C-alpha cells in the first residue's frame, strides 16, 4: 500500500531587511511570501513603511517579530496593521539591548 502524506508546515522568513527597497519589494511580491506564517525581521528601519504595507495583506501570518532597532522609534506605519480590532496576530518588537537576550526576556508589545 502506498500513501502520500501532504503536510502543510509552517512557513517562515527570517532576515535582515535593511536592504535595497527594490530587493525587498521583489521578495514580498512572490507567491511564497504571500503564504507566510511567521516572520522575524531585523534592521527594518529603512524599509518599515514598505514592509508594513505588505504585512497587512498576509492572510496566514500569525507571528511577526521585529528585532534590532529602538522601540521608541518604531514607525507608526509598522504597527498600524496590528491595531485592527480582533487581530489574532502575535507581534513582538525587540530593541537593540533586548534583542541580545533570549526571547523569554523580551517584552511583548502587542498580543491579542
Amino acid at each position, binding site marked *: 500500500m502506498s500513501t502520500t502524506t501532504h503536510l502543510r*508546515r509552517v512557513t517562515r522568513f527570517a532576515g*535582515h531587511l535593511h536592504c535595497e527597497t527594490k530587493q525587498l519589494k521583489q521578495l514580498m511580491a512572490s507567491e511564497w511570501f504571500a503564504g507566510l506564517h511567521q516572520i522575524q525581521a531585523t534592521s527594518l528601519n529603512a524599509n518599515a513603511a514598505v514592509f508594513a504595507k505588505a504585512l497587512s495583506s498576509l492572510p496566514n501570518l500569525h507571528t511577526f517579530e521585529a528585532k534590532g532597532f529602538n522601540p521608541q522609534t518604531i514607525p507608526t506605519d509598522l504597527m498600524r496593521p496590528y491595531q485592527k480590532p480582533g487581530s489574532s496576530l502575535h507581534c513582538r518588537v525587540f530593541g537593540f539591548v533586548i534583542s541580545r537576550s533570549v*526571547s523569554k526576556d523580551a517584552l511583548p508589545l502587542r498580543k491579542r
Partner: protein
Amino acid sequence: MIAHAEDDTPRLVYADWLDENGDPDRAAFIRTQVALWDKNPSDADYRDCVESLEEACSFLPHSRSLAPSLPAGFRFDEILHSTLDSGSGGYRRGFPHLVELDYNYEPEFSEKLHAGCPALLDTTLRGICVYTVLPHEGVQSVLASEFGESLTSFLSYNQESAPGTSHGTVQTLLSSACASKLTWLETWQDSVR
C-alpha cells in the same frame, strides 16, 4: 525517513526504536526537535519545548558525530541546538537537514557541486546554507538539480552585498520549482548598501 523527509512519523518511530535499543539520549533529541519544529513563540508551551531541547542536547556530546558523509563542495555544521530563536547548526527535527556550500575557489566549482547533488538525495538533508559569497553559478547549479527541487530550507548570508556574485538568488529561488516546498527562508547581510 529519506523518502518522506517532511513526515514526522518515521522519525518518531525511529526514536522509539532507539529507546528500545539502548540510545535514549538520541531518542530524546529527536523527539524534542520534532516537538519544537512547528511551534511558534506565541504558543504557551514554546519555552518549555526550547528548554527540553536544551536539556536533550546536553546529554548528547558534540564528539559523537551524527553527520552524513558528503560529496566534495559540501560541509555540515555539527552544532546540535537549533530553535527558531537560534538557527545555528545543521540539525532539524532530529536529523541532519542543512548542508553548507563550501566554496573553495577551485575551477569548475559549480560543476562539482552539481555532480554531488544526487548523493545528497540519499540523506535527510533538505536545506542549503550559503555563508560565504559564492559565484552565482554555484548556487544555481544546486538549485537546478533534483536535490534543489527537494529543498525545504534556504539560508543565505551576505549574498546580496557583493556585486557580481549571487545577486538575485532569492528572487530566482522563489520563482522556481524549489519554492513549492520551501518552508524556511533566511537572508542576512553584513554590509548595508
